[in-house]
């Protein structure tokens, strides 16, 4: 069984990528089929089989694993197609999920929205008050039982909720992550009352301090889990019908995958499923190219996504905000930082030119699509500036109208500001580049790092038009535009090349240094849980690596710093070393002498991770272009850099490039999937995998 397949279901397209143990690869693209996304996934597998020249049955029969990036859980939340959930919580704290720590009024909003305070609102309640039941029970901060669990109340509440037609029940008691006995007993009672109902416990879904996020996470998990099950089980059955005998794996937001049958248990971990493929792709391509620190930028038509790879690993965060609710789940940090090529240019009341965050989306899209979108967008500016060839958009599959683009810019930007259309387009282009640099810098700096230590990877249809500008502004050391075998299906490649990653953690706030025995015990318990979970995957792994870490802070800080715990026995010295590692990490994040040991330190969370490698790992083929010296296919006037203005610009066809070619800006490279802009001062070469590597002589 030599194949491994990656299937990435996006909003518009479903992408497929396949590799075998001999290093052969193929890719395919097929329209997504909402709301029945499984159809699109099956279609793309047909396409892959076709491109390999085999039948789907034989193809699937010979496939070991399918790694799937699914939008089903995120989509369920966004469209509100979630289960009716009942919620049990500690008496006196039912309102926690409506008080939302007061932050629910503005969490996840952009500064302009927050400033307009009288227009801000909390989102609708996760669970209507009538479906929330308060239970007499109480555990304190040490895990000691203060009030015993009232079992009759749990039973009565379950019956009442069932009579209200709930499809699943979430349980979140105060301090349950310190002592889960009340939640565990509650589950037994609920199961006695209703044996088949889906039940989630906060002590299992999100065993961390801070009850609001833990409860919200558990509830969201409970709302989407039955939907995920309802998507994956029929998909897996259909694959089996078509001859598949291998394992169906689902990508999680954390950047590792799990077996489809296990996924619904922690459904919340698949919320970032579809965002993650790209960054895993960057990580793995980075390994092939020798880049360890990568800023991943994915600029599509409607979104601009940013993620980070540091030291060869995706940077992840432990929470995210969805519908203004803070959800605790390990997720690769993928930030949506505003609009992509569809970002609309507009004039604010003060007569200043602004770009985004509103987007024209995929429909009607930029004015130049001619689909009725009259607003000028970044893509319209790119076209008006001669960067994009109207006949080569999406490899020529879509004709663009320069006239409509210029007309929209004229009406909405140039005329109100008294500028020429060319100048208006140039301003839109430059503002987009500069604010992209600002927003990307914020992501990098907020993670405590310096953009100058990174290489930018730029993919997505609109990214390479802008990447040389914003990367230079960031001070990044260079840009890689993936153009080789993975070009059009970069995220699906990421999926096919991913590992199984399982994470277990427990919040156990301890003042530092804790007794070594306490640390040892915490990790022993996590180790046991993790090994049991690995067993349940029932997969033949090539190798398994374990990592331990703790989240630490100076006493009373809010922000914790994730600190690795070195392998080896836990003794007094090992514990002391953890403290030293934390202090060193803190100093590197916030500056020398920023730390303040006298305040005391604390460990908040203990965490363990298993990274299990699958036997097949896709090898990317080497670039096979010739060694001839390329000539431009033509010249045109284009505006690539605000400091240089309009210039005669060489236009190259990517397919004509040879491995020794060295392109010098100003130049434009047209590829079947995108357009790469090379402003003056930039040089571009191809690497051994066919990716374009851009360097610049001077920062913009």
């Amino acid at each position, binding site marked *: 069984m030599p194949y491994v397949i990656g299937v990435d279901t996006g909003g518009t397209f479903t992408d497929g990528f396949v590799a075998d143990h001999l290093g052969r690869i193929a890719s395919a693209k097929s329209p997504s089929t909402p709301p029945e996304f499984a159809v699109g996934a099956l279609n793309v597998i047909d396409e892959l089989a076709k491109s390999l020249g085999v039948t789907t049955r034989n193809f699937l029969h010979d496939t070991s694993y399918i790694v799937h990036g699914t939008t089903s859980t995120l989509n369920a939340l966004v469209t509100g197609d979630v289960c009716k959930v009942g919620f049990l919580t500690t008496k006196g704290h039912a309102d926690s999920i409506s008080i939302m720590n007061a932050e629910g009024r*503005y969490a996840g909003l952009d500064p302009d929205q927050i400033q307009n305070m009288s227009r801000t609102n909390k989102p609708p309640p996760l669970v209507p008050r009538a479906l929330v039941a308060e239970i007499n029970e109480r555990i304190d901060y040490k895990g000691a039982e203060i009030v015993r669990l009232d079992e009759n109340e749990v039973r009565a509440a379950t019956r009442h909720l069932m009579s209200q037609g709930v499809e699943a029940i979430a349980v979140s008691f105060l301090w349950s992550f310190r002592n889960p006995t009340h939640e565990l007993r509650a589950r037994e009672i609920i199961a006695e009352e209703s044996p088949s109902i889906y039940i989630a416990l906060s002590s299992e879904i999100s065993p961390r301090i801070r009850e609001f996020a833990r409860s919200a996470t558990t509830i969201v998990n409970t709302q989407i889990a039955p939907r995920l099950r309802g998507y994956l089980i029929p998909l897996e059955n259909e694959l089996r019908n078509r001859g598949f005998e291998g394992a169906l794996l689902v990508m999680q937001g954390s950047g590792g995958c799990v077996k489809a049958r296990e996924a619904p248990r922690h459904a919340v971990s698949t919320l970032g499923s579809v965002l993650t493929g790209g960054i895993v792709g960057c990580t793995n391509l980075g390994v092939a190219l020798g880049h360890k620190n990568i800023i991943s930028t994915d600029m599509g038509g409607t979104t601009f996504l940013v993620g980070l790879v540091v030291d060869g690993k995706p940077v992840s965060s432990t929470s995210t905000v969805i519908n203004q609710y803070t959800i605790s789940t390990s997720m690769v940090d993928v930030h949506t930082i505003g609009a992509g090529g569809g970002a609309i240019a507009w004039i604010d009341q003060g007569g200043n030119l602004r770009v985004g965050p509103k987007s024209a989306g995929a429909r009607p899209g930029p004015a130049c699509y001619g689909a009725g979108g009259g607003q000028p967008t970044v893509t319209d500016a790119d076209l008006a500036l001669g960067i994009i060839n109207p006949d080569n958009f999406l490899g020529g599959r879509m004709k663009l109208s320069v006239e409509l683009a210029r007309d929209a810019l004229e009406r909405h930007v140039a005329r109100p500001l008294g500028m020429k259309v060319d100048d208006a387009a140039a301003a839109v282009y430059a503002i987009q580049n500069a604010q992209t640099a600002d927003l990307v810098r914020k992501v990098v700096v907020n993670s405590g790092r310096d953009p100058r230590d990174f290489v930018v990877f730029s993919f997505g249809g609109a990214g390479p038009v802008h990447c040389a500008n914003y990367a230079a502004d960031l001070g990044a050391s260079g840009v890689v535009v993936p153009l080789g075998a993975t070009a059009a299906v970069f995220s699906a490649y990421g999926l096919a090349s991913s590992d199984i990653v399982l994470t277990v953690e427990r919040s156990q706030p301890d003042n530092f240094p804790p007794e070594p025995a306490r640390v040892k015990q915490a990790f022993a318990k996590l180790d046991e849980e993790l090994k049991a979970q690995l067993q349940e995957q029932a997969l033949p792994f090539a190798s398994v690596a374990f990592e331990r870490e703790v989240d630490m802070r*100076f006493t009373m800080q809010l922000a914790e710093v994730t600190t690795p715990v070195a392998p080896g026995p836990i003794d007094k010295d090992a514990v002391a070393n953890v403290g030293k590692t934390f202090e060193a990490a803190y100093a590197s994040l916030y500056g020398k002498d920023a730390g303040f040991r006298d305040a005391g330190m604390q460990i908040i969370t203990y965490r363990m991770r298993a990274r299990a490698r699958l036997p097949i790992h896709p090898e990317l083929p080497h670039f096979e272009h010739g060694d001839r010296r390329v000539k431009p296919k033509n010249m045109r006037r284009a505006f690539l850099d605000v400091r240089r203005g309009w210039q005669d610009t060489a236009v190259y066809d990517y397919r004509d490039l040879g491995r020794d070619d060295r392109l010098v800006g100003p130049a434009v490279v047209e590829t079947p999937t995108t357009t790469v802009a090379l402003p003056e001062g930039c040089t571009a070469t191809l690497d051994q995998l066919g990716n374009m590597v851009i360097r610049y002589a001077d920062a913009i």
Partner: protein
Amino acid sequence: MPLIHVAGSEKFVFEERASDELCAIASKFVPLHTVDAAAELAIDPLTYEVIRHRLSAITDDMGDALKRMSGSVVVTDCNDFNAAIADEAGDLILVGQYNMQLAASLDMAIKWTLEHRSENPGLRPGDMFFCNDPWIGGGLHQNDASVFAPLFYDGELFAWSGAVCHQVDLGGVSPGSWSVAGTDVFWESTPVPPVKIVENGTLRPDIEDMYLRRSRVPKLIALDLRAKLGANNVAQQRLTQLIDKYGPRVVKAVMKKMMHDAEHRLRSKLRSLPDGTWGAVAHQDGARAGDSNIYKIVLQMTKHGDKLTFDFTGTDAQVEGFVNCTFAGVRGGIMPIILTMLCNDIPWAPGGIYRCVEIISERGTINNCTFPAGIGKASVASAWATQNAVSECVAQMVGTHPQHRKAAMSCCQGTWDLALLAGVDQRGAPFVTMLCDPMAGGLGARVDQDGVDTGGQMPIPMGRIADVEINEFSFPMLYLWRREEMDSGGPGRYRGGLGGSSCFVPHDSPLHGVHLVVSAPGKALPLAPGLAGGYPSATSYDVLMRGTNVQQMLAQGFIPGDLDEIDGRHEVLPSHVETNMAANDVYFTHWQGGGGYGDPLRRDPHEVALDVASFRVSPRAASDVYGVMLKTDGTPDAGATEARRRDLRRDRIGAGAA
């Protein structure tokens, strides 16, 4: 002892001066970087937008650094801090979206420093100044400790950065520096006028020690001091990079233009509103422990053309107590409202916005007090009350405009319900903390919808409260409940947002109890008035139950859900009190919601029915205040409602009119 003028204190007062005049004074000793009007005209829209965006990103980075590095729940979990950038003259170009009161006074401290510190000890590269003297600025009471730094470029003073946050204890008679029994400032933390705490890039240990020595929790204060230095470092580095790239003339021109942009847009909005005068009177009950007098702040706000005048003539004289505020408090009461209700779609550049505003206020009054009046609670006492009056006037004014009215809110949470805990924590360490649960106050109703329940408070657009588990982990307490309180939102056609309550017992302290300081006016009268016929929100209500049976109840498997279920001595607390809580004592604190908008008798009966079903309004209030009668299934009874509303209207005009 009565308040007697302290000779020699005149120096420590912020004098409003034109920026040119101030620069002329300072430039005798320090070269200032300035640009002419031509530089501003030469800025193209593109450069303006790029640099504006970056300055805003730098302010954000300062806030993030503060939050990440601070050690105080008040800052890290409750966002009681802010950061700002000012030009060479100290005019604020940008403030963060955290506590606007704090940022509204930073320019005062910078301007005072320019005037009084330029010659000696002088302003040089690598210097940072510390200040917590509210007569000078940089904060509204002594707990607002600010650090601000001149930025030099090519040997010229180019701009200023500043960071300020609430410190949990800086000394004074009572823990937390809220000296409820105090009669003047000498009961409180000693104000520190601007001192050079960082010299040539190095923190001065002698100055730091002088600062920390006064606190009950010096380590925590030291950690927060480093957070503020870190925030300024971030600003200085990033601003220098920005000037390196674009040149000082361009960056400065953008800074000036940002203020002009805000000014022009606010002026044009003011012109679109009708001229007129609006009035409001805000109250406070009790100036110190044992005092039950009521004090008023009187405001006449006049809009003429593109100018707004706030005239506080008629306001009560300063009092013996700790509720007075300095001129910083008047500004701190005005600026947050102007920003959220008038500048909701205008950049927050206070330096430009202040040019549209005139303040008339007599020195020696409760919201413009002189030394040595007590100001320990200024920020959430007279400054807050000032804000209530400003909120009422500005909301009425914008309420006249078909579009701008949407930015209006009725008064939000009329008062800060302070509960301060101190003692020894469950790990045996001394602690002091301000319980920030009231940060989830009810917001005022809007012209087209209800106020947000437990949504925050007016001066802090991004206010936040800590999780129950964070408080229980950090401090020796066990919550019986934290919830939204029925009927706490001001009734109206659109209802004010609900306030909430917390109820807790001391837990696991080695001292078997905690020290408690309570300060919450709004008990004798509601302080968040409604608008356009809307009713005020409920009053504050704090109860200490002594010698209760709560521990037995818990041991028997029952968590009380209401004070009525607990046996014990019921002490309804006055506005200000300091006391001890024993292990069997229960503390209940119920903070205020927001005012209503419009006549409650015009509220859609179905909305009232929904509020009753979701425990936001009691059936009694539905009947007596909203005039809505519900059927047994909870839906409105149309006939009975109509009759009830007719009766209520008749009651309003008196029996004679029947």
